């Protein structure tokens, strides 16, 4: 290790205390802002993944082989019991449920509403579908309960129906016959979004089997304890499901929602990039000024035989010293803020009300940042990366110093 060079670089940083302090503060603020944005990004990723998963998609879902192309609710799994057992055997599972869907006309009196009715397993459904975890009026379905239905508030209103009212559900059977059943409304769900309410119509799985005249389930939905394991779980499950069935992730089930997340992420990364670019230009300017001030010194270093490569290393070492100090300041400024955002959250209720719905997913209005061990390496990487990039031109400039010219000018 070149100890004298290291001392030289570190001490050089302290030559112009005011400029150095400003540069370090600039890097620190930049790091703190980048850290804040990254924490929000990561927290939002987790939030969106959770919201998406618990809004019905699950983290992974077993579907019939050609479901993704046709999206036909009448499609059924080749062997749903086998798929359910395979899903339950996966490690890291939080909940698993089965569903079957059918296009149904609900009617009460003169009011008719077309809906996609979902036949569920009432015991497990609330663990995977957050909107039925709390039924605002009435109650949720009971296992094996015949002729009962839970609907969203918007559906009830369109039918002009209320709790305990009986509604007629009609669907087309397998051979073109019309199958119908009288169902009693046992619960009405209010999510805060009419769009989402209008999509909630649940009954027992057996009821949908009868109405659609199709036996079995159309999907096995899996919620993982750690959403980051989605791809691994999908791969593990894909090799276990019945032949003819396949496994999709929540991003594939709701590509629009996934696209929305990616767009959001790109926007915040762009903002982080702009912040870092401003910091970078500030550091580059300070470093260039420092190099220009020391042109004679670099000429002398060159005269005593210091190679261009060593000179670049010297300037970059100075930059890394600045970067380290900036990272420390960035952590000091950013950690309390990120901790607060991670524990208390950013409350957007004033602007979003109780949340906003997108593609059947209601996003909570309180965003939580992520707080973890990633913070320190992240801030160091940002600080070192920014200062090293910002110092490349000043370093090159220093290395190109013509000793004869610089010494002649100085004398």
């Amino acid at each position: 290790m070149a100890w004298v060079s290291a001392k030289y670089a570190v001490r050089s940083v302290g030559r112009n205390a005011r400029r150095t302090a400003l540069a370090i503060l600039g890097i620190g603020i930049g790091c703190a802002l980048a850290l804040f944005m990254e924490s929000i990004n990561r927290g939002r990723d987790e939030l969106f993944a959770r919201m998406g998963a618990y809004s019905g998609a699950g983290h992974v879902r077993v579907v019939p082989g050609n479901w993704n192309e046709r999206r036909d609710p009448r499609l059924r799994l080749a062997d749903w019991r086998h798929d359910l057992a395979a899903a339950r055997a996966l490690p890291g599972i939080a909940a698993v449920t089965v569903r079957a869907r059918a296009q149904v006309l609900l009617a009460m009196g003169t009011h008719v509403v077309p809906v996609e009715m979902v036949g569920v397993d009432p015991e497990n459904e609330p663990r995977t579908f957050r909107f039925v975890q709390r039924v605002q009026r009435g109650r949720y379905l009971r296992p094996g309960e015949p002729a009962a239905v839970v609907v969203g508030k918007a559906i009830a209103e369109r039918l002009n129906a209320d709790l305990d009212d009986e509604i007629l559900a009609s669907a087309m059977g397998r051979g073109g016959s019309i199958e119908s059943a009288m169902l009693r409304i046992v619960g009405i769900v209010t999510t805060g979004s009419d769009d989402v309410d209008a999509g909630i119509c649940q009954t027992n799985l057996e009821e949908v089997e009868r109405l659609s005249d199709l036996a079995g389930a159309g999907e096995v939905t899996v919620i993982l304890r750690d959403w980051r394991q989605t791809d691994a779980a999908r791969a593990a499950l894909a090799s276990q499901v019945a032949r003819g069935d396949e496994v999709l992730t929540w991003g594939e089930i709701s590509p629009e929602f996934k696209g929305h997340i990616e767009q959001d992420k790109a926007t915040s990364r762009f903002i982080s990039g702009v912040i870092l670019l401003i910091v970078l230009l500030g550091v580059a300017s300070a470093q260039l000024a420092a190099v220009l001030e020391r042109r004679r010194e670099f000429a002398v270093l060159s005269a005593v035989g210091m190679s261009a490569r060593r000179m670049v290393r010297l300037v970059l070492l100075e930059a890394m010293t600045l970067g380290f100090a900036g990272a420390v300041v960035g952590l000091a400024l950013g950690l309390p803020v990120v901790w607060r955002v991670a524990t208390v959250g950013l409350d957007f209720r004033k602007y979003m009300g109780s949340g906003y719905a997108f593609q059947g997913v209601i996003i909570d209005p309180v965003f939580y940042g992520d707080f973890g061990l990633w913070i320190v390496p992240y801030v160091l990487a940002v600080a070192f990366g920014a200062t090293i990039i910002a110092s490349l031109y000043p370093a090159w400039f220093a290395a190109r110093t013509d000793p004869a010219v610089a010494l002649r000018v100085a004398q």
Partner: protein
Amino acid sequence: MSETIITTRGLAKVFQLNKHQVPALRGVDLDVCEGEFLAVVGPSGSGKTTFLNLVGALDVPSSGDLMVLGRRIAGLSRRARAELRLRSIGFVFQAYNLVPVLTALENVEFVLELQSMGRERHARATQVLDELGLGDLANRRPNELSGGQQQRVAVARAVAARPRLVLADEPTANLDGENAETLMHMMRDLRDRHGMTFVFSTHDPRVVRHTARVVTLADGRVVRDEEKPGEAPHEVLPGVGAPPGPAGA
């Protein structure tokens, strides 16, 4: 007979200033042998510093031939010239030009570090500072040293790696009489003990008095090349310098 370490034939250097070409050297022919203690003198603008820069491989000639330590300077890349300076040439500047954030010892050690010298560099730097009577000041930074002390540190830095050639550009210009005398005695002592060649660019008679040969430049040409019959009396000043060691050690 001593080896010739600097050879110039028709050495010329022209600077481009805006649209004008300004000749600084106009055909210098000179040979310098190893171990010489030589002064290049002349009025301002005569080409002394340009000559030193060319011989020190800081610059390349516009025309003519320049061989330093067996290397043709015009044919060397930037990197090769830097390597030549690092390994074989020491510089002493008028304004000392020490690194202000390093101590005297570190300034000397730094050059040895550039040469990738290992653990012995600390001992070598300490020894050189001791030889130049700076042992007690080794841990002071340049701003804590007088001009004379700083120039001695600069000399220590220039000679620490035992270069074959030391180039000194107006080394005594900022020093009072006593410090200038001390410095010249020290450099002669170094020459005597280590066989280094010293070339001074100067118009200081205190420097010229100590040299054995004086080359006078005027208007970019050598107008006089004078061997002096004998160097001025030389003694190592009390309290300065260590007992002579083996040359080239």
